[in-house]
């Protein structure tokens, strides 16, 4: 999936797949926080321009 995104011109870092067990609460929080920080760093998606950005309003 990441390779296909890169080929289409979308930063592959915007996608992450992680397996977290239901017993791993702290790990889940850690994984999600990390991801949110990473996405913040990347800024708005390059797809949110023109029509889609207007619709999203």
């Amino acid at each position, binding site marked *: *999936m990441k*390779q*296909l995104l*890169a*080929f*289409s*011109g*979308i*930063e592959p870092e915007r996608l992450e797949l992680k397996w977290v067990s239901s017993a791993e609460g702290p790990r889940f929080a850690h994984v999600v926080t990390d991801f949110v920080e990473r996405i913040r760093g990347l800024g708005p998606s*390059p*797809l949110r321009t023109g029509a889609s950005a207007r619709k999203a309003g």
Partner: protein
Amino acid sequence: MIDQVRDHVKGLLDDGKIVAFVGLKDQGGNVSPHVYTNSDDLNNGFSLGDLNTPGDARYPLARIAMTAVSQDEKGAVGVLVRGCDERALYELLRWNQLDAERIVKVGIACPAELAQAHECRKPFPDEYVAGEKTDPVANASVDEIMGKDLLGRLDYWKTEFDKCIKCYGCRDVCPVCFCNVCTLEEDSLIRTGDIPPENPMFHLTRAVHMAGRCIDCNLCTEVCPAEIPLRTLYKKVAEIVKDEFEYVTGEPGDRKSPLNILGPDPGHTAAND
């Protein structure tokens, strides 16, 4: 050359080895797929895509053969195969869409110009009745895109996908699109009312569904009225599947496609049969 093929097919029909032959028919200058059911039929408009040689009129004959097989209870069906049709047959077999014993291939090798025009990876089937074997053509289109930077690629694909009129031609002509229900028509997954369809979701979704399936025949790109280079996208997907799973589509053997691992084994219709 065409006589060679015609005589071969006549022999198969007359000997009762096949009940029908899926091939091409020239009808007043238009070449279209046709199911021949007796050898007299073959005297009328039998075509290889061009007047006497394998020409550029191509159709998803493998999938038409799949339908023809389902129309008859147990007889075998002959089918005109080029390199691409054969790859489609191999892939349909691996996806349990066909019974190998009910297909009789009649191979023709494609001329070099045709192979060149379609960047064909194998312009001839394993066995062929007519035609000359020509060299495979190397893949260049994927490298061209990979040469761009991320933004360049996004611009390129967004512009291409914006041309889409959502005719579903790419899906309908695809020899390996056999699903009864299609994600592309599922409103909860992709908005169905928009033209161009959701960009890039529509085309990326189709690309993912081509993983471990696309046999690189180029029919989708050939039929696309908006001339979107879809096949380049699917070629990349095939490259990823090959790198990650060492799976190459359109080859003989019963190895299951990596995206079909939960399905029944080849030759079975259900997991527990």
